Each structure stands twice: as structure tokens, then as C-alpha cells.
């Protein structure tokens, strides 16, 4: 990938993702970003090490339990054989508007089961089967298309999978994560010669101890 990812999830989002305390739909957007971003792959590994070492610390709180029965039951179980080769998920592609896009690992299972494409002008969306309450979909925008100014009640997360989205604030390429709040108004559009595929997550309200803008790393300019 030649495009350097510029817009990353902030530290707090990454920590909650690693802990497993993030809402699954938001976590899916973060996971997909990580698939596309070597910087966050490392950050993610670092947070795993940090949290795991805290869990395993010598002075971690421990509880006295009699686990003897559990120990015997477990060690009576057969062990799994090491697989010959680590199974790689097969590359999954989605087709829309005569184009074929390869989707990242985190989306491969869900993208295989996407719903019917609903098309309106140069925009098409297909829902991913991510549970009833989740609004997770693939969003396709044809080249040279402008999305009219719109507002949302909740949090809108858009992860660019392919192509570029431009708005008043800048340009977002593959791997970039945009987070928009109801307060944000912008008019995104694609380039004249390039269409765009995104993952779109319209999330239930979230509780965070910092402002929403902190969900994006403020250091984006610093990194690259």
C-alpha cells in the first residue's frame, strides 16, 4: 500500500479495543483500521503486552479458590494438534458497479454475507450482518459524486477501504478513519476519476471520558 494512513484511532479507543470493552461495531471499525495500518498494529501489540503484564503481575489481586476439580477436569481433556499451516482466511472480494474490491481480514467473514446493494444516484450501501442494533454497512461512492450535507443523531465512523474521500477538512485515503459527530457538518465527495469504498458504522451513543475529537489521534501530522 503506497498510501500512508494519516487518521488513526486515539489511544483511548485503542485501549478499549484491546480490553474488549468497546462496543462491537466500533471495535470492528478499529480492527479494520488496524488491518490496514502497520503503525497501529504495533501500538495494538504494545497495549496487549502492557495490559497482559498488569494482569499477570506478581502483585495483582488474587482470589483464593479451590480449583482442584477444575484442574483435573481440564488435564483429562485431549490437546489440540498444531495445525500444519496457519490457516489464512481466503481473500474476500465485494463487487459493485462493475468493480471488484478486496476487503481486509476483519471484514472477510461479514462481507461474504453482505445484504443487497441499495443504490441511489452515485451512492450504494449494503448492510453487514452485525446484529440487530448495529448499523454497519459497506458504502460505495462512485467517482465524481458529492454527498449532500447531512446530519446524524449518533456517532458516524467511516473507514476508507479503497479510494479517497475529500471534504473541507482534507483528504482521506485507504485506512483513514473519520469520526463525525452530530455537530460536524461537511460535504464529502469523491475525486473525478476515482470511486471509493468505505466501511460505515453508525453507532449507538458511547460513553467516553474525553471529548469526541480525542477519539482521533491528534498527532496525525506528527507521525508521517
Amino acid at each position: 500500500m503506497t498510501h500512508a494512513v494519516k487518521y488513526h484511532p486515539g489511544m483511548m479507543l485503542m485501549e478499549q479495543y484491546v480490553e474488549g470493552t468497546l462496543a462491537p461495531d466500533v471495535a470492528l471499525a478499529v480492527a479494520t483500521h488496524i488491518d490496514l495500518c502497520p503503525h497501529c498494529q504495533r501500538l495494538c501489540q504494545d497495549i496487549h503486552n502492557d495490559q497482559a503484564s498488569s494482569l499477570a503481575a506478581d502483585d495483582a489481586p488474587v482470589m483464593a479458590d479451590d480449583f482442584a476439580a477444575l484442574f483435573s477436569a481440564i488435564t483429562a481433556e485431549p490437546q489440540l494438534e498444531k495445525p500444519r499451516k496457519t490457516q489464512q482466511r481466503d481473500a474476500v472480494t465485494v463487487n459493485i458497479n462493475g468493480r471488484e474490491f478486496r476487503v481486509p481480514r476483519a471484514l472477510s467473514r461479514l462481507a461474504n454475507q453482505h445484504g443487497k446493494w441499495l443504490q441511489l444516484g452515485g451512492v450504494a450501501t449494503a448492510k453487514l450482518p452485525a446484529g440487530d442494533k448495529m448499523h454497519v454497512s459497506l458504502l460505495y461512492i462512485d467517482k465524481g459524486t458529492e454527498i449532500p450535507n447531512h446530519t446524524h443523531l449518533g456517532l458516524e465512523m467511516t473507514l476508507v477501504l479503497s479510494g479517497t474521500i475529500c471534504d473541507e477538512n482534507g483528504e482521506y485515503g485507504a485506512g483513514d478513519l473519520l469520526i463525525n459527530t452530530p455537530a460536524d457538518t461537511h460535504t464529502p465527495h469523491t475525486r473525478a476519476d476515482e470511486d471509493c469504498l468505505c466501511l460505515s458504522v453508525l453507532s449507538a451513543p458511547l460513553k467516553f471520558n474525553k471529548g469526541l475529537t480525542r477519539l482521533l489521534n491528534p498527532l496525525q501530522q506528527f507521525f508521517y
Partner: protein
Amino acid sequence: MLDSTALTRHHELSGTATRMPERMTISAEPHIRSGQWEDSLNFVALNADKAAYAELFNYFAPRLKAFGMKMFGNEQQALEMVQDTMLNVWKKARLFDASRGCASTWIFTIARNVRFDMLRKKQSRKDDISADDLWADGDYPELEESSSDQWETMLLSEKLAPYFDALPIAQRLVMQKVYLEEKSHQEVAEELDIPLGTVKSRIRLALDRLREALDDTRS
């Protein structure tokens, strides 16, 4: 991931529990040294070594229980998480690859995934987002050793002092030892009884946080 039939099965099995190996009754916890848990896992993987598994079990099961209590606030679910996690540690020991990370990280991720899927099952959703979707099982390409040096000069800034104090305590401790006491990463790992990889991770995380703080003061 463990299926539900396996779960019921070892409830039944527990009735016919045999005595634990002698070593399990030692009450004093062994001192952790770097590499100990990786060695234990390898013995479990190679020989289904119950004594090695007992060491892992005695150390991690109570800690996982405490972690589960914190996350679920409910003893029954905490115990279910301990049971599923420790069963996976036993069953999947041959899948552990020390070159991809240390044993504690591996066990932590198993526990996290077990917990996530427990919550999902409770909501009885089959087509929902699963732990396998969210967390890659260490299948990213190896990253080259990153240089933290390029950020180190910012530590000279006096403005950083209050942010340094606000670092999570585990990260601050590592930073103190490396930058103020000028100890090597290896020395710090030994002193704190944490894997060398965790020392490096905590330094990078602390530098990231300080950068974030520095950026905040400018905007």
C-alpha cells in the same frame, strides 16, 4: 473456541477428580523470571506435562478470576471465564508461538476473547461480530525494531513534567528506570519481573502519550 458441550463435560468430569500433583499444594508463589511461563507452556505442548501446567494454572487461574470479577462483577461468570480460558491454555498449548509474543499476552488474549464471546452468546446472536473478526491471531507481518530515539529529545522539555507524572503507573515506572536511573531494558525487565517485550512496549506507549500531551498543549 470452546463449545458448550465441552463445558458441560468437564462439570461432569469434576465429580471423578483425581488428586492434583504434589507440586500444586506448595502455597508460596514461585518468583517469576522472564521466560518461565513460555517454558511451562512448551512443556505442556510437548509432553502434556501436568506439573508444568499446574504452575501456569496456580499462577494464572486466581489472577484471571480477579480479572473476571472486575469485568463481570459476578462470580459465576468470572469462574466460567477462568474455566474456559484455562481449558484453552491446556488444549491450545501447541498453538502458542513464543516468537510472536510472551505467554502472559497469549493467555490474556484468550481470556479477553472468551469473555467477549460469553457476552455475545448471552445475547444469543449467531451472526454477530465475533472475537475472531475483531482480533487477528498474531498474523500480521513482523515489525522491525522501531526507534524510539527520534522522540526521546522531547523528554528534555520541562513542560512535560506534569504529563510524565500523569502516565499510568506501570509505564511511569519503566520510564523512570530507563531514563532517570539509566538502566538497560533487560535490567528493568528483571527488576520488575516483566517480559523484555513489555518493557519496550511500555516505553513506546509512554512516549505516545507524552506526544499526545505535548500536542494538546500546542492546540
